[in-house]
């Protein structure tokens, strides 16, 4: 189970030179409860006191959702900064910083995993990488993951975390919406199951494209899920939104999520789902064979 480590933010891991209290303890960002860093990690970065689900890295996510060592998938790479974009900082520098901070190339990674013997392609987004925003790399990574799932005839699981479009890529980031929806359509036309796990937050162009189109949609507790963020709505409408607006529980009651699953239960839930689909697809093959005879 060596690959299972690596859950807590690199910051905590890399400062192992001392046993200072700052490294031993982790303060829950929600209720401020002091928890042993080791205990926090074992709890998959969920507060045992208040159930707060801390945002985690894509690498940690992949490690916690597989029975075997995940097989990382190599994804298509593009020329950085297609527009030569500069706001308060050069986009190129922003990318450089994000890569250094997260140790990944862009806001999504993918791996082939196995749960109780059932294989799947797992596509995971990382909010720490420029807000998990979707540009050409992320859109293409999703398409590649979908194509691979189809080629191997195994389900696709997508764990989302994103503020929306990668604005620094301008219209190219907008074009990722139809591109990823097309990928979902490929899955559908090939009868390949597609399961979405929404994590905090999933908003904008990501929730308005592939993150909405799962055959089954799960969500972590209290994740922000919506097209327009609550702050923008409050500003433009000059209102105060009620507590919990657009959170997982809200989306469950409004009919946009199938179930809310605690992080510690997620692997079990996905295993269950994969098993149902796998057996159903076997039976389908059997039925086809019988029909032919």
């Amino acid at each position, binding site marked *: 189970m060596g690959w299972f480590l690596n859950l807590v933010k690199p910051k905590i891991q890399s400062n192992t030179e001392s046993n200072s209290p700052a490294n031993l303890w982790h303060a829950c960002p929600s209720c401020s409860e002091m928890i042993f860093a080791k205990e926090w990690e074992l709890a998959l970065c969920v507060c045992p006191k208040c159930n707060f689900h801390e945002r985690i890295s894509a690498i940690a996510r992949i490690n916690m959702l597989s029975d075997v060592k995940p097989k990382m998938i190599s994804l298509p790479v593009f020329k950085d900064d297609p527009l030569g974009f500069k706001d308060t900082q050069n986009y190129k520098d922003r990318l450089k910083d994000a890569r250094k901070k997260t140790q990944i190339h862009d806001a999504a990674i993918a791996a082939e995993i196995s749960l109780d013997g059932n294989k799947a392609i797992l596509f995971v987004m990382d909010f720490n990488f420029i807000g998990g925003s979707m540009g*050409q790399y992320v859109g293409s990574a999703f398409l590649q993951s979908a194509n691979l799932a189809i080629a191997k005839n195994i389900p696709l699981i997508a764990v989302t975390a994103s503020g929306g479009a990668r*604005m620094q890529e301008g219209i190219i980031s907008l074009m990722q919406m139809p591109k990823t929806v097309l990928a979902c359509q490929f899955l559908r036309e090939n009868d390949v199951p597609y399961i979405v796990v929404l994590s905090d937050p999933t908003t904008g162009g990501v929730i308005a494209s592939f993150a909405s189109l799962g055959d089954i949609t799960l969500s972590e507790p209290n994740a922000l899920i919506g097209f327009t963020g609550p702050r923008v709505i409050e500003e433009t409408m000059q209102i105060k939104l009620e507590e919990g607006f657009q959170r997982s529980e809200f989306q469950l009651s409004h009919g*946009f999520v199938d179930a809310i699953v605690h992080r510690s239960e997620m692997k079990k839930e996905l295993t269950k789902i994969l098993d149902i689909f796998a057996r159903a697809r076997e039976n389908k093959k059997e039925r086809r064979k019988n029909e032919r005879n």
Partner: protein
Amino acid sequence: MTYQLGFEEVVLPLEAQLNNLKKNISLDSPLVDELTSLDKQIIRILNKIYANLEPWQYLLIARHPDRPTGVDYIRKLITDFVPICGDRTFGDDSALVCGLGKFDGIPVAVAGHNKGFDIDERIKNNFGMAHPEGYRKITRLFDLASRFNLPLITFIDTKGAAANKGSEERGQFYALADCIRANFLLKVPLLSVIVGEGGSGGAIALASGHSLMMLKYSIFAVASPDACAAILWKDRAFSANAASALKITSTDLLKMGVIDKEIEEPVGGAHRFPDQTFENARKEIKKELKRLMALSSDQLRMLQQEKFGKF
């Protein structure tokens, strides 16, 4: 007071003078010469202004309240219009007008944004920003068009999808995603024309078809430059910078292969010369429709896969 664009300032008093002159003139009046020279002078100045527009000025033209909006193109270019209303789930969205009709004698299905004519209509139509009902109505229209062999034309003019409490409660994100998916279920050609603002998800939901054209002085962007400036520069005062950086003009987007064609617009813009603009749009739509109607539904799908796969 009528709405004025700051950079058109020089030409506005001359235009007022011209209109005044036109009202009080007979054909044999000696003032006809003055009228002609005034008209020439105005065109000269407009040529100069419009030859040097910055992207943020395109944005202002695209948002000009006198600029024809989507529904105006339906009124001008579509005959025998039959309205399609409601999403059969919650309500109708007047920000998006849908229907069947004929374009140049060809039976078609059409949709267009309606930003609204006066302030009351603008408020009613949420300034052309559609709610989930609007996108669900589009999904309905697309299905209808596919089943009965009606080529689709959409006229886009929206700042984006509605961004309020109600639209969130009723699942704006799913309505948008499902509407984009409806683009890929089409068995008939979908030809989209951005006639003013092509804003974000609210625009792409109606423009993921087989051909995308833009009027010269319209814009197409992932986020409105004001919103982009607020997010990336943390200050709306940087809207002009954002407008340049985002590459929102038809010229840039044509180069990038995002749009298939730029439709010429008279110098001075559609807000000044609507009839000439309608006519230009009619001609280009006719050509493009002819090209697309020759394709089978498989060929249409291949075209879409190539078009969107490449980004």
